[in-house]
Structures are given as structure tokens and as C-alpha cells.
């Protein structure tokens, strides 16, 4: 524990990022003890109330309690990001390791595919995919799965580059000479050495997933009945909250989104410091 605190002092980005993330997780879990989840869905007559003792964050144009919405929505948005990030990283690991380790023709095919795919903005691909789902009432999990469709390319490319540089290191040769099979080398030699890098990739692809889901939801594609952050933004715009001067309705989701995204970026920077100690950066 003592060592950990000492380390965080040298790597403040990781410390700040992780504590912000921890705060958000506490907010959405412990927060649940103080709310009635129904208030995030139930439409009441208390429309557009400014923050008060009863409604600490105020209410929106449908009379939903914003505090309840934020407590539930933070969890949902993190959930979308986590699903998309985990699947994206999983596919990215497989493709990245295959391309980086196999090399040659396989590598050329996979890399070109990734390059082409990355030139087409993932957001537009998601919009096209969502047109298939017009009229379908999406759930939060499904939203995560949809976003996952575009989350693999970034990690795949980054992991491939890492594998490529690690493949020629002496310890891999030693393992080869020692008679290890390819899969064994990958699992026992490469993966453990890349672990900090993989965790950083995870945090980056969770960030990417949340970013993509926010954009889609802000355009009205998503779990429309759920109080996710992006859907809240959509309704802010739908009911022109800024025209009515409802600052609390804008403040709540904006703060949660800023906290979420910044915490993930800081965590990535901190993890990058662990993964690439030679490239020491000050933030």
C-alpha cells in the first residue's frame, strides 16, 4: 500500500484518473441507496424544477428527477463503454497478435483492412448500422454491442505494432530455441510483457466506446427510454433546455461526461507511463 502511494506521487495522472473513476463508480453504486429508480422514468408534474432539497440536481421537462437519472445513467454509460471496450480489445488482441506474430501476407491483409476501416469514420459506420435498427427499442447492453462493432480497429493496430517490436527480442528467441510452441510463446512470453499496454488499450477503447455512444445517442439513436448520458443530451436539445434557461439540466450531464472522459484519458496517460517507462511524459 505504502509503495502504491509512493508510486502515485510520481505518476499523478494515474492517481487522479483512477480516483475520479472510483468516485464515479461509488456515485453510481452507493448513490443507488438514496434513490428510487422509478424517479428516472416516471413522469411527474414537477417539471423544470431548479435544484432543491427534494431534487438535488433539479428535474427535467418530463418531470424526471435528474439526480436519479445521473446515478443510474452514469452506470449505464460506463456499462456501454465497458462492453464495447472489452469486446473491442478482445478482437483487437486476436487480430493484433495474429498480424504481428504471423507477419508476411496475413499481416498485409489484416493491416490494410484495419487502415481502410479506420479511414471511414467509425461514427458514420455506426449510423449506417443503426439504420437497420430503426424502430427497434434498444437496450443498454445492445447499445454496447453495437458500439463494439467499431471498437476493434484501434487496439488491433496498436497491439500489432507492440507485438512486432517484441517479436525480435532476445527472450522470445530463447523461448523459441527452448522449444516452446507459438501459442505458448504468445501466452507465456508476449502477453505478460504487454500487460500494462493491454490495460492501457482497454482504458482507451472504453473511452472510444463512450465517445461513440454519446454521439449516437445525442442524435437520438440508442436506448431512448433509459437515462444514459447521451440520451440526456438528446432530450436537452429536444426540449431546447438552453432556450428555457434550465442550466441544471445542462450542468448535470455535462459534469458527469467531463468527469468520465477525463478520468479515462488520465488513466490511459498514467498507464502509458507504466507501459513505456522510457517515454516519460509530464502531465
Amino acid at each position: 500500500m505504502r509503495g502504491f502511494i509512493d508510486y502515485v506521487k510520481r505518476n499523478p495522472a494515474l492517481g487522479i484518473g483512477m480516483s475520479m473513476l472510483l468516485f464515479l463508480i461509488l456515485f453510481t453504486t452507493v448513490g443507488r441507496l438514496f434513490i428510487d429508480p422509478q424517479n428516472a422514468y416516471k413522469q411527474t408534474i414537477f417539471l423544470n424544477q431548479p435544484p432543491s432539497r427534494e431534487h438535488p440536481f433539479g428535474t427535467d421537462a418530463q418531470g424526471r428527477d435528474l439526480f436519479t437519472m445521473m446515478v443510474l445513467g452514469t452506470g449505464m454509460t460506463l456499462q456501454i463503454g465497458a462492453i464495447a471496450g472489452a469486446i473491442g480489445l478482445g478482437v483487437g488482441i486476436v487480430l493484433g497478435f495474429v498480424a504481428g506474430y504471423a507477419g508476411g501476407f496475413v499481416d498485409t491483409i489484416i493491416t490494410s483492412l484495419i487502415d481502410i476501416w479506420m479511414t471511414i469514420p467509425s461514427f458514420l459506420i455506426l449510423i449506417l448500422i443503426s439504420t437497420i435498427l430503426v424502430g427497434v427499442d434498444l437496450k443498454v447492453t445492445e447499445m454496447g454491442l453495437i458500439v463494439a462493432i467499431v471498437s476493434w480497429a484501434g487496439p488491433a493496430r496498436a497491439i500489432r505494432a507492440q507485438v512486432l517490436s517484441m517479436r525480435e527480442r532476445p527472450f522470445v528467441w530463447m523461448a523459441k530455441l527452448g522449444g516452446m510452441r507459438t501459442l505458448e510463446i504468445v501466452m507465456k512470453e508476449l502477453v505478460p510483457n504487454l500487460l500494462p499496454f493491454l490495460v492501457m488499450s482497454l482504458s482507451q477503447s472504453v473511452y472510444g466506446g463512450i465517445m461513440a455512444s454519446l454521439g449516437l445517442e445525442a442524435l437520438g439513436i440508442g436506448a431512448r427510454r433509459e437515462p444514459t448520458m447521451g440520451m440526456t443530451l438528446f432530450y436537452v436539445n429536444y426540449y431546447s433546455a438552453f432556450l428555457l434557461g434550465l442550466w441544471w439540466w445542462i450542468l448535470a450531464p455535462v459534469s458527469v461526461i467531463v468527469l468520465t472522459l477525463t478520468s479515462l484519458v488520465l488513466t490511459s496517460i498514467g498507464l502509458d507511463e507504466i507501459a513505456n517507462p522510457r517515454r516519460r511524459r509530464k502531465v
Partner: protein
Amino acid sequence: MHLNYVIRRVVFLFLVIWMAASINFLLPRLTGRDPIKEQMLIQIASQGRKREDAQNMIDTYTRIFGLDKPLWQQYITYISNTMRFNFGYSIINYPRTVMEIIINRGRLTLPFLSVAIFISFVLGVLLGALLGWNKTPQWVNNIVVPPMLVFSSVPQYLVALVLIYFVAFRMKLLPMGQPYPSTMMENWSDPKFLLAYARHAVLPILSIVVVEASGWALGMRAMMVTVEGEDYTTFAEARGLKQSRIFFRYLLRNAMLPSLTGLALRLGFIITGSAVAETFFSYNGLGSTLGAAIGQFDFFLLYGIVYIMVLSIALATFIMDMVYPLLDPRITYKAQKG
């Protein structure tokens, strides 16, 4: 510049465009839904569109896209239509063609978007270079970098939302949205219109600049530190060159190169992000039209806009790839593998 490299990039450009067009072709056919018929049924029911009109439109589409022909033939027709920018008619705004709408709306988006990207890039690079320069006191960094980190990690429409509330609604300094006052006609040769357009474009541009300039500044700042450690910088200092010359010709020029690659990669993100921001600004540009097309299930308009966006991003990336070797003579693309 190596010919081989140029050919590779051209092939790549066509692959991207072809892939975008193919996704557009495949997706609706995978679902087995008929967007035209679905839309017509809705319109007949809700807007009292005449049955003959609807039938007429369905026939037009069947003819244009050859929907009665085998799939491979449909595919060839579709691709050749797309290459000639023939995306058919908008379902909602029939009989206007998709291309007509794209040009109408695109000319409102293109000017402010390109100005915004240009300002963000120049400002970001200069700011980042100054921050990373070893003559800049550390406390400036301590103050400026944390907010930049926050700005660069949020989407631009979030900044737009806050700007609309504070600058436009609270302080009433600038209009809250729309590309030009609704009392005006769109007339690009009228200086009064241009002035109004510029005034309305300030907030959308600002929301892009705040986010993107911060991102580039942070990247640039990190690169400056690397360049400052290079031998040629030490040599330039030993020669007693003027600080301004070292800064611009030695540090800035070399540190800038990765930012240029970053520009190409970031372009898609900026364009799609501004599409969302446009809906917040109720800005009648290409982006909000995309948003509206999603809401109204106007599939042909949607596919047209997506294709045009992919095309412009792919072209911009291509141009950047062509310019890059000219800017950095150290790069030779002879043995570029993977």
C-alpha cells in the same frame, strides 16, 4: 517522391471509397426491409401523400436502382451511380435529389468547418510549441495544461452546449444558432449576408477550436521535448543562432510533422463531431441534415451524406499523404512495409 508510394496511396483511396459504397449497398439489403415502401406507407397514412405519387416514386426507384434485376447487376448499377454522385431522390423531400440537398446544405457547413479546422491546427501547433519550449516558464504549463487536457478529452458538442448557454443565452453576445438570420435570404455575393454568416459561425467554430486546438497543443508540446533533445538543436544553439530562428526553423518545423499526420486521422472525428454540434446549434448544414435524415428514416439522403463525408475525408487524407514527403525530406518511401 517515389512513384510506387503514389500508386499505393491511390489504390488505397479507391479501396476506401469502394468499401464505403459497398457498405451502403449491403446494409439495407441485409435487413430485407424495403425503406421506400415503408416510408411510402407512413406518408400515405400521415401526410396524405397521393397514392399515384407514391407508386410513381416506387417505380422510379425500381427503375433507377434496377431492383428487379439480379443482385450482382444491382451492385454494378449502384456502384456506377455512386461514382457519378447519383444517389437518387430524397424520400422526404421528393422530388429533390439527394445531391441537390447535399450541395445546398454543404455550402453552409464547408466554410465554417474548414475555417475552424485551419484555426485549430495553427493555433494548437503554435500554442503547443510555445508550451513545450524550454524558454517558457514552468508555471505557465502548470496553469494551462490541466484545462487543455479536459477540453481535448470531451466531444466538441459538449463545449458547444456550454457555449450556447453562457455566451448566447446568458450574455446574449452571439446568436444561439442557425447559419444566418431567418429574415435573410441566402445570397453569397451580398456582403451583409456574409457578415451575418460569419457572426453566426463564431460559436460553432469556437466549439471546434477549443477542443481540437487543445488536443494538438498537447501533442505538439510532447513532441517539442523530443526535438529539443536532438543533436541538431544543440548544434544550432552552439552556433549562436537567434532564438527565434531556432524556435521556428529547428524546433517548430520538426516537431510539427507528427501533428500533420494527426490532422489526417482526426479529420473524420471533427467532421462527425460537428454533425452532432450542428443539431445543437439548429444549424441547417450537412450535419444536422444527417441528424434529421436519421430521425425521418430518409435512407437515400442518409447514405448520400455518409458517402460524401467518407469521400471528403479519404480525399483529404490522400492529399495529406502526398504533401507529407515534401514537408519532411528525410522520409523516403522506398522500403515502407506494412
